């Protein structure tokens, strides 16, 4: 039984797929639990942690699958035109119960414009970014969208301490820059950067920018799409 010829990445991918679906069910139950026991659970920090961490794992698995498909050359951006304010507020709705539970204040500040992007891919990126912001913010998160230099720029700002110097950068990440030794692998940023790059128009392609400041004075994540 030496050469079983196991395609390990394939095995991993299907296992991840399975786990992701299980977590989806789990998150669904958590949402239901929260609405059924609103009074007793509303402020429970343990319940919030439960939901937050489950969300985080779910996002990680979604990204893993995305990166797997990227490696298989089986992921492309299906770009369509979307009304940006609608997209952002629909997107935010998903995080509402947890945000309310944590007492985090959210605002959306988007220009009334249409943007060209792949809805599913960008949802993956924003889920992860908002999840991160929830982790590092003190009390507020702000979503922004507008047109700058011919690019659609979607931003997520918080009022936390901001990104450490080593993480702030502009442009694209490659797979080698992932550091599996430090606690944070930047997997999310790698995914975001890959998604940005899949969005191209003529010679221009998308990118991400990380810096500090913004209107809330904390970390600012921006994805620039042509």
């Amino acid at each position, binding site marked *: 039984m030496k050469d079983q010829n196991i395609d390990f990445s394939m095995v991993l991918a299907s296992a991840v797929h399975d786990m*992701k*679906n299980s977590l*989806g*069910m789990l*998150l*669904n139950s*958590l*949402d*239901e639990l929260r*609405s059924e026991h609103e009074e007793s659970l509303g402020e429970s920090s343990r319940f919030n942690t439960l939901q937050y961490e489950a969300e985080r794992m779910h996002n990680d698995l*979604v990204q893993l*699958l995305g990166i797997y498909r990227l490696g298989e*050359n*089986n*992921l*492309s951006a*299906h*770009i*369509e*035109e*979307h*009304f940006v304010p*609608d997209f952002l*507020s*629909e997107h935010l*709705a*998903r995080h*509402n*119960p947890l945000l309310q539970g944590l007492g985090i204040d959210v605002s959306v500040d988007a220009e009334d414009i*249409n943007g*060209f992007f792949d809805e*599913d891919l960008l949802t*993956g990126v924003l889920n992860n970014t908002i999840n991160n912001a929830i982790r590092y913010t003190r009390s507020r998160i702000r979503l922004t969208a507008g047109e700058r230099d011919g690019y659609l720029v979607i931003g997520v700002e918080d009022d936390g301490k901001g990104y450490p110097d080593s993480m702030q950068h502009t442009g694209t990440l490659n797979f080698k820059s992932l550091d599996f030794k430090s606690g944070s692998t930047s997997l999310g940023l790698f995914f975001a950067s890959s998604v940005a790059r899949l969005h191209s*128009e*003529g010679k221009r392609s998308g990118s991400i920018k990380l810096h500090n400041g913004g209107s809330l004075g904390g970390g600012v994540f921006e994805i620039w799409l042509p």
Partner: protein
Amino acid sequence: MTDTKADANPFGKLNYLVIDDFENFRLSIRQMLRSCGADSIELVSNASQAIQHCTYNHVDVVLCDFNLGEGKNGQHILEDLRYKKLLKRSSLFLMVTAETSKEMVMGAREYQPDAYLTKPINRAVLEKRLSALISQRNTLMPINREIDRENYPEAISLCLQMLPRQPRYKTWLMKTLGDLYFQLGDLAHALKTFDDVLAQRELSWARLGRCKVLLANRSFDQAVEGLRELIANHPDYMEAYDLLAEGFERQGRPTQAQQVLEKAIEHSPNALLRQKHLAQLAGSNQDLETSSEAWQRTIELGTHSIHDNSEHYLALGQALSDLSEGNLEEEGKEKAREALTVLKKMEKRFEAEEGISLRSQIVQCRVYAGQSQDKEATEILERIRPKLDNAAALDAATGLDYAKTLFRLGHESDAKALLREMSERFSNEPDILQKIESLLDEPVGFRQKIKARTLNRDGIKAFEAGNLQEAAEIFSKALEIVPDHAALNLNLVQVLMKENDNSPGDAELLKRCQTCLDRLAGLPEQHRQHRRYIALQRKLKGLMV
């Protein structure tokens, strides 16, 4: 705004249907809908209840879970409702999935839900998503109403009026506009619509639309090139593969078409119509292994689908019969058994269909004959013969299949008589005539047919290389298998005449030519080889004087 009440509660006036196999989920969705202001909400747990409800009630919004356990899934319900027109275009169908990716759901793309909702769903998500969809529905209602009435010109002018006023729905409006022009056959305007979109931005749906128009316009090369590029950029865009396969077919390149479909099926194996297309294509490419596998998949996918059809079973039975014919090894026996099983299954499943048992027995008869079980074969033939004697009453497919069985059981003259009668009756239908000609040319089993075809190809190669003697030998060998093959006989005649040109005076050569042409004496005028036959006959007469 005049209708302030409706604005205040857009959820209130509509009828909802929630389909999910878990009671908890149904109840929690109902709870969420109620808190959004909805009032009329029906809950059901499976497909038949859903279809029943839609048959007798008007529904504005369907919320349907994709995975419903055993039986039909959400996509089947969507197909059912849209196909039977139980759900209007102006009604919304929302597919609820546990998948973050839509792959699983992307079965038959003919019918698509208005939106996908990914679990987990909370009230806020549902309210946002649904209210956006409802206000879109209300805005676009006048257009969809005209489309439901099939009043396309009116729908087009409404789209054009709305375009400058509703930038939010621009994509929907442009897609619909392109589609409507296409359906009306106004290809110039359809092309212009897609080009307008592409001038602003490279969008895959517009590129696909453009290629579809090019194909309809018979600009096959342009369409094929555009689709190849589209697939190179979007290897997961399934519609592009389907259209490219069609493009290759129309270019007369069926092998490439088959390869494209096989590639698409690797990505997305659950689309019934794609599997069916592959099965047919591989069948006509004589790749019966691929064809029978694809028919098998088509049948499996059809179990709960509106597209299920007895033809799929019959086609699988025929393919397996051809594969097993004359193969008495274990592999051949197995295929023969499978063929009989699938035919039996068909008789049971489509019991009510007229003539189904007859169609089944025509194939069964060949299966037994192919396994040298002549007694069983003859028994069946004797049983069905009386019902098939009135040739004029047979439809083309039954007649052709019956003729094939008659040939296989050695009733050559009966088969030929039947086909002669049919070629008169269907003289205005070139597709059927072509099938009749092919059967008359090659009334032999699958393997022998392939052998004869290969020899024919080799013969042509030898002829083109100038090896006349070799070519003549190969063609003669092929004719031993299929002596009545029109094109083959004429090929041999041409080779022999050329030999005669090179070394005139060999009476034997011309005599052999005459024998070939004599075989085609009964060739009907509408036969594709008829003109060539006449020309060669004239030439031979000239040589023999």
